[in-house]
């Protein structure tokens, strides 16, 4: 511990989590707490500090992970939902009616929240896991405008949340949209925790989730030492580990740079012949100049070997089909996204073959409006086939998959929400 840490750690009790590192549930809780900015102390079950708490709860591995909340309450076994509840993160909505409801609090959703609430709209944002979206797990964005030395994804998200709340946005985490239906011109929304409210306009900004890696046996090892995404909760625990990262985009590159600070070796596995087409040059330069990052192009994972945890990757060269085994302590999969559009589909929004939500002029064939469209005007830009329901950011068909672009779309969406509200007000 450095002198700085000595002076900057909390002085009151925080969440303590006790478990085995290779537990998927423990990982889910660590990931949830990390991404929500809630500090916690991880204690391995074999650590002497865990003994007294385990003795209190019952020396039974089925009770792991154990979570000790700041007020001393014990959850055993702990789940994400219980921890969120125990920390008071599941407060119901404060109002029954809002002007704008935003589903998803990534860059697009948070930008819409800031612009909406700063312009006087009663705004609520609902987020399934934690604010920040995929960008929130990024270790350092160095080409985001206005931050010459870079800004980490979680700091950007934290600041955006503070900004949105300062303007009056209500942000609900750890729940998702369950249903939406029209009540007159307004939308009635029901969340996964059974809370309900109405909104005059809705913005779908649910983003993307990591594309699944198709390798036999992977589902059994997820959350043990194989993870989707950049694993912000895991970096510090990867000291001296051999880490592999799959992917050739900026997310994979940023994860490689972060893990290189902690791990003994980072191997970046890329199917393409080079990273040049898929990764920003600054990251490519960083990776090239980092000694413990090894980039393997034309390589894909074809098998996993282990014993309840991953021990080795079986790699194949895409051209020669030569096989090779790579000893691996942790694998992080950052191979692009698939739209998180189940909520949108569930309420009747049109999506394309890839699952992205279709908006604006793309819904109109010639002069023919989308099926079920009841208004005289065509859909506004960013508006879905459902009047008053908009989409922005990575979940939207045609969006540019950049943090700044998503923020731009979030801001744009608010402008069109205003137009929709004027329409409802007879303006």
């Amino acid at each position, binding site marked *: *511990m450095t*002198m*700085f*840490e*000595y*002076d*900057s*750690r*909390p*002085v*009151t009790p*925080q969440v303590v989590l006790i478990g085995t590192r290779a537990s998927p549930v423990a990982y889910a809780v660590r990931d949830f707490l*990390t991404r929500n*900015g*809630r*500090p916690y102390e991880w204690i391995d079950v074999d650590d002497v500090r865990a003994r007294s708490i385990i003795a209190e709860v019952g020396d039974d591995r089925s009770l792991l992970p154990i979570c000790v909340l*700041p007020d001393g309450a014990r959850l055993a076994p702990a789940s994400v939902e219980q921890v969120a509840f125990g920390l*008071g993160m599941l407060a119901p909505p404060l109002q029954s009616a809002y002007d704008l409801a935003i589903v998803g609090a990534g860059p697009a959703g948070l930008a819409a929240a800031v612009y909406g609430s700063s312009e006087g709209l009663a705004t609520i944002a609902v987020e399934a896991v934690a604010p920040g979206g995929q960008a929130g797990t990024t*270790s*350092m964005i160095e080409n985001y405008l206005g931050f010459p*030395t870079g*800004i*980490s994804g*979680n*700091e950007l998200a*934290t600041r955006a949340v*503070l900004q949105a*709340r*300062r303007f009056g946005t209500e942000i609900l985490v750890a729940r998702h949209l369950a249903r939406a239906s029209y009540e007159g011109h307004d939308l009635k929304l029901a969340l996964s925790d059974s809370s309900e409210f109405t909104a005059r306009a809705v913005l779908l900004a649910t983003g993307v989730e990591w594309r699944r890696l198709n390798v036999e046996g992977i589902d059994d090892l997820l959350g043990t030492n194989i993870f989707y995404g950049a694993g*912000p909760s895991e*970096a*510090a625990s990867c000291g001296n580990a051999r880490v592999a990262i799959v992917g050739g985009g900026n997310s994979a590159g940023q994860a490689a*740079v*972060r893990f290189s*600070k*902690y791990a003994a070796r980072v191997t970046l596995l890329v199917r393409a012949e080079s990273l040049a087409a898929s990764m920003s040059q600054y990251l490519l330069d960083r990776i090239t100049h980092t000694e413990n990052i090894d980039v393997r192009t034309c390589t894909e994972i074809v098998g996993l070997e282990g014993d309840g945890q991953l021990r080795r990757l079986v790699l194949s060269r895409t051209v020669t089909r030569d096989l090779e085994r790579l000893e691996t302590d942790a694998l992080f999969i950052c191979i692009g996204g698939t739209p998180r559009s189940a909520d949108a589909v569930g309420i009747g929004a049109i999506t394309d073959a890839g699952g992205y939500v279709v908006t604006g002029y793309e819904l109109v064939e010639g002069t023919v409006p989308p099926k079920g469209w009841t208004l005289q005007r065509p859909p506004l830009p960013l508006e879905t086939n459902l009047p008053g329901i908009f989409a922005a950011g990575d979940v939207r068909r045609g969006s540019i998959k950049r943090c700044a672009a998503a923020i731009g779309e979030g801001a744009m969406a608010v402008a069109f929400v205003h137009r929709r509200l004027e329409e409802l007000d007879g303006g």
Partner: protein
Amino acid sequence: VADLSGQSLAHLPEEFSRLATVEQLSATVAALEGNGIVCIVAEDGEEARRLVAAQLVEGAEVFNNTSRTLESIGLAEDIEQSGRYQPLRLRLYQMDREMQEHEMRVLASSPDYVVGSVHAVTLDGSLLIASASGSQLGPMVSGAGHVVLVIGSQKIVADIDTGLRRIYEYCLPLEDDRARRAYGMPSAVNNILIINRVVQPGRVTAILVRERLGF
């Protein structure tokens, strides 16, 4: 004599745990005010806690210095756990030391409010604060928007020389013991800040408490 941690202080100079007289307290208040430091007297820790809460704006970035005083009267808990403020320690603690070192330094350097204590206050209105890392001193001097200090009146000393002696002979042994137990590392008087005068009106508030708080 025992301090709030229950540790025996028998071997430590008794003069530094003795509460100030009414006259000494009045003289110190007048001197602090004369040196540009807003000064409020509280009867006890509970009143001091309420007075601090009244100083802090909801939603503000607040850094609570490591302080036995703040912990003993529940202020550390108010700041870190109440949800009324942005407690910077919690944000710093969950940041990536390798990737966010710059962000951590920036964040810790310029909070809206620093809440802490001092190790000695002199009858002629100087404040003495020692720090092992020094990280909390910069914000107190100029980085923080406002500085709120809660000071048990046993910390009132005659002059700066006596204040320095209080730091080395009384505070350091206690803080060293605390640091070894809490963090497994020793403490040291690596830095000492002496505030003789505050030029920005209203920036520093001292809440002097008529009881023994902290060490």
